């Protein structure tokens, strides 16, 4: 029998709305409104400087469809998605499988693979511009040192190569991050499952394919979604490295849109591009939501068949490729077939040797291989760190030698240039936005998971649809809005930061909260707890891993966000790190040594933190990411 003071478990709709309200307000104000504003503007011809807008109907969209660069950009975004998934997922999986233990040397190796992710994107772009330099750059110099000078290219300067060079850097930077996510998923598989498989006589290979991977399917899907989202929205790296060049060869949708808006002042046209980005991303969200809804299927049935066919087709295409170029290419085709055979053969051999190899030698082989890979990974970072004590001509003229003169002054210059200030600002802004976003998203996640929100499904779908909204699409409306509200500096950016982080956080937290047995919260409710206390004192402590996971996602994008900070933070004292690093470039110069010193100074504390706390991060990510 129900006591009169006991609240109904589902709560009234007004309580539910109250809980969901903060998230809805942030979302409506900073995501939905600017996006709708942008959609409306795409039917006008207007300039940011001239405030008169002329309705032009579909003219902007017609212009878009007749713009060849738009299709180049679409193709490049497509390449970005496909290659990022194809390179990062297997590599990240390999790293996660190989380095999943708590061994000290694995902790170190994981830190090394994670290091590129800690570098601010702007710094990564600037750094690789020098590494890729065709005449003096470190990469071509390295190729020459190892006797492969015929592999040297113009990299960012060659139309055919530029976009791949950028994608490679993107993969290099993000693999460590995805390793962490997959690692978490891996660790959530109970150990007894593996033991049972071993008892049943399954080999390592068989266990991997039939037990481990199927159990990781959700985290793999989450990860694939994250990579896809990142690839559709990719902006900063392309902007800093090639700005879409040479010509338009490495243009992506976001750079095209940014240039139309802020360089060429064709706001309506830019808005039309933004709308196309929205539509593209919406499709991915819907597909994702569809895939994750299938709870019981181990894989969507087409996946394994499809991937086998895809691999076979790719191999066949690669072998047949010379035939398309000119018809007397039989030696090349035969050569490729032999090479393919060798690769397949050695892979088969490797797997079989691996199965039979005793534990100790296998571990030694594995760790050595990963250590070598880690060295390769850390090389550019090391180059950057070393660059902080060199002069620019030393850096370019002798890229792989130790500095002739050690310029310790670069650190002093970076410090005097305010790098400490930028670092503290970025830490504070990140902390604020993560904290606020967590509070807001926890409330609404609870409402959507446990309470009856009127129109809940619709509102939830709406917020989650915001996962893929590119920030750039709402830059101008956000700016105008912040001016009307007299917000500059931090108050102006933290609102959008919270709002744009919400969709993913609400999605993940809701899923996790929904999975916590209702008996727990029911008991608390019967004991007289309000929903407020149930959430903060019962559910969130249990959901700590999920909270950690979403906090890391949120922190990682706020930490790197460039365009909003560029436009909305006015005073140098409040400036954040990505813009601060740009500030080390003068009108006609860039103080490379000082930039590298700045990068080193900012990287060191974060890497140290990561090294010390990675076990918490790993176990924190576990539950959150897989749900």
């Amino acid at each position: 029998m129900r006591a009169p003071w006991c609240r109904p478990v589902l709560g009234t709709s007004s309580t539910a709305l109250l809980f969901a309200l903060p998230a809805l307000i942030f979302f409506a104000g900073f995501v939905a409104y600017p996006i709708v504003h942008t959609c409306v503007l795409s039917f006008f011809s207007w300039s940011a400087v001239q405030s008169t807008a002329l309705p032009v109907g579909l003219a902007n969209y017609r212009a878009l469809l007749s713009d060849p660069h738009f299709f180049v950009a679409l193709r490049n975004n497509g390449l970005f998605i496909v290659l990022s998934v194809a390179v990062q997922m297997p590599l990240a999986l390999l790293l996660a499988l190989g380095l999943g233990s708590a061994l000290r040397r694995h902790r170190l190796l994981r830190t090394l693979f994670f290091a590129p992710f800690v570098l601010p994107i702007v710094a990564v772009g600037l750094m690789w511009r020098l590494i890729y330099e065709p005449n003096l750059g470190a990469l071509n110099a390295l190729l020459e040192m190892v006797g492969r000078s015929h592999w040297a290219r113009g990299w960012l300067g060659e139309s055919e190569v530029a976009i791949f060079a950028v994608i490679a850097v993107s993969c290099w930077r993000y693999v460590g991050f995805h390793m962490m996510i997959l690692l978490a998923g891996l660790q959530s598989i109970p150990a007894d499952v593996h033991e049972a498989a071993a008892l049943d006589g399954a080999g390592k290979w068989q266990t991997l394919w039939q037990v481990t991977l199927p159990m990781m399917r959700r985290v793999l899907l989450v990860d694939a979604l994250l990579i896809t989202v990142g690839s559709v929205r990719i902006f900063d790296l392309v902007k800093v490295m090639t700005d879409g060049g040479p010509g338009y060869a490495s243009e992506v949708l976001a750079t095209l849109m940014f240039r139309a808006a802020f360089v060429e002042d064709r706001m309506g046209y830019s808005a039309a591009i933004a709308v196309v980005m929205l539509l593209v991303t919406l499709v991915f969200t819907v597909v994702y939501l569809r895939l994750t809804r299938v709870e019981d299927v181990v894989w969507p049935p087409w996946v394994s068949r499809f991937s086998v066919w895809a691999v076979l087709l790719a191999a066949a295409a690669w072998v047949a490729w010379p035939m398309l170029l000119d018809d007397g290419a039989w030696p090349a085709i035969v050569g490729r077939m032999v090479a393919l055979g060798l690769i397949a053969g050695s892979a088969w051999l490797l797997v079989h040797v691996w199965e039979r190899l005793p534990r100790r030698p296998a571990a030694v082989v594995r760790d050595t291989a990963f250590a070598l890979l880690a060295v390769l990974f850390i090389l550019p970072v090391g180059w950057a760190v070393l660059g902080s004590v060199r002069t620019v001509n030393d850096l370019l003229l002798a890229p792989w030698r130790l500095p002739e003169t050690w310029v310790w002054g670069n650190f002093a210059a970076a410090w005097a240039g305010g790098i400490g200030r930028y670092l503290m600002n970025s830490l504070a802004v990140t902390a604020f936005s993560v904290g606020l976003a967590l509070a807001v998203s926890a409330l609404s996640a609870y409402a959507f998971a446990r309470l009856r929100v009127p129109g809940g499904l619709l509102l939830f779908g709406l917020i989650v649809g915001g996962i893929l909204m590119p920030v750039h699409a709402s830059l101008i409306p956000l700016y105008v809005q912040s001016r009307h509200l007299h917000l500059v500096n931090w108050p102006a950016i933290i609102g959008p930061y919270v709002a744009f982080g919400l969709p993913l956080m609400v999605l993940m937290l809701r899923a996790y909260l929904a999975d916590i047995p209702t008996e727990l919260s029911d008991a608390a409710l019967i004991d007289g707890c309000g929903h407020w206390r149930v959430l903060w004192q019962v559910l969130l402590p249990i959901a700590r891993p999920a909270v950690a996971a979403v906090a890391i996602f949120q922190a990682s994008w706020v930490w790197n966000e460039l365009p909003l900070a560029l436009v909305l933070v006015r005073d140098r004292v409040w400036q954040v790190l990505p813009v601060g690093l740009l500030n080390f470039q003068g009108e006609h110069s860039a103080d490379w040594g000082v930039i590298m010193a700045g990068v080193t100074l900012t990287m060191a504390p974060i890497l140290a933190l990561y090294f010390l706390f990675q076990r918490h991060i790993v176990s924190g990510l576990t539950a959150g990411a897989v749900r």
Partner: protein
Amino acid sequence: MRAIILTFGALVAILLGGCQPSQEAQQQAPTKGAGPLVSQPSTGKTTLSLWTIWNAEPRQTALAQIVSDFEAANPDIHVQVVPHEPDAYKTAIRVALGGSQPPDIFFVWSGEKMLHSFVRGGAVADITADLDADGGAWRQRFPAASLGMYQFDGKTYGVPYLLQCTFLFYNKELFARHGWTVPKTWPDLLALCKKIRKVGLIPISLGNLQKWPAHHFPCVLAQRLMGADAVERQYDPTGPGTYSDPGWVKSLDMFRELVDIGAFPKSPNGVDRSAARVLFYSGKAAMFYTGTWDFARLSKGGEAPESFWEAWDFVNFPAVPGGKGEQGCLEGSPDGYVVSAQSPNRAAAVKFLQHMTSVEQAQRFVTRCQELVQVRGAVMEKNAGPRLAKYMKMVEAAPRISAWADTMMEESVAQVYMAGVQELLEGRTTPKAVMERVRQRQSEVRRELQARSGS
């Protein structure tokens, strides 16, 4: 499909229903996080905000000095300087002008790219009356040609400050060692490049990753072929310019000739500008077509090694025999400052610009920065080094100065042009095709502008 429709329906619903409360919430919510951190303007004083791209030394300190002198003389005015990274500034200022409170005073590059489009948009205040007050005392401080760059339909919208020009820099030591002579004409230059190639050096250093450095070549060639007036007439998208003069294609053709004889480093589109500078001062490249902004980096105290500080010199770009243009013309553009049309502190802003462009302040700026300030009498014998003095003399002797295409072309046209030059460097397109695209874009821009002003 249903999900898409639902989502869009909900977006609209939120917009219609949610605007009012959401604005209130925005005002409250972020202040929770960072309220006390908002910078408070000092009360009782007029605060002038000034946006600049002078974010590096020595210009930054020089500007700070100008500001503190001004504030000492005008205790009721506070000047808040906001330095921006130059590339980012282009974005920031456009966005700010689209908003409701742009800075009172801001930096501009002269020409179509910034000044003209801002003037067309009504974003910049007309200061003709201030310049003409007291019998034109303020106007007379500036060289007429530079100030002319800030005039539009007979009205003046800003004041020039720094003049930047491009010159052909060359390595004196390499030239002496190999017995090369400084090229006076275009055929000289081509022949010299071939000679330099033969000894295994790069004839002309070029870093075109940032898209604009390479366009200086076809730009100066166009001026030499057609004449500065003919070139400049083409730029204004509201005027008659159609880029139909064959000189445009010819200038790109001549540029392609340079590309074809291997005058540039490998893959110049992948070379950062600082790397191009390193190629030049390390002696791997014999020449470098760059601007006066590189003086400081190559001279005493700059990033170049000490042995190089005195090892280079600069000349005007060679003449093109048979060209219709002024063959001694310099390529350059005066950067300057303008007052926002929306500024509530117009009088104070003008007062500051008058202070900044006083001979005394200008001389101090020259002393500190060694740059060519466009105020008469700013550069003197005692405050200018030999290179600045030579530069000054060349400017005075030049028949005229013609601005670069990237500052003069309508911005989207300039983007098409520079992308075309990048593709030419790779041999992926033809001069004809590039100009075809430029013409097409220009006519589109004209149509858009006409439609907008007609409404």
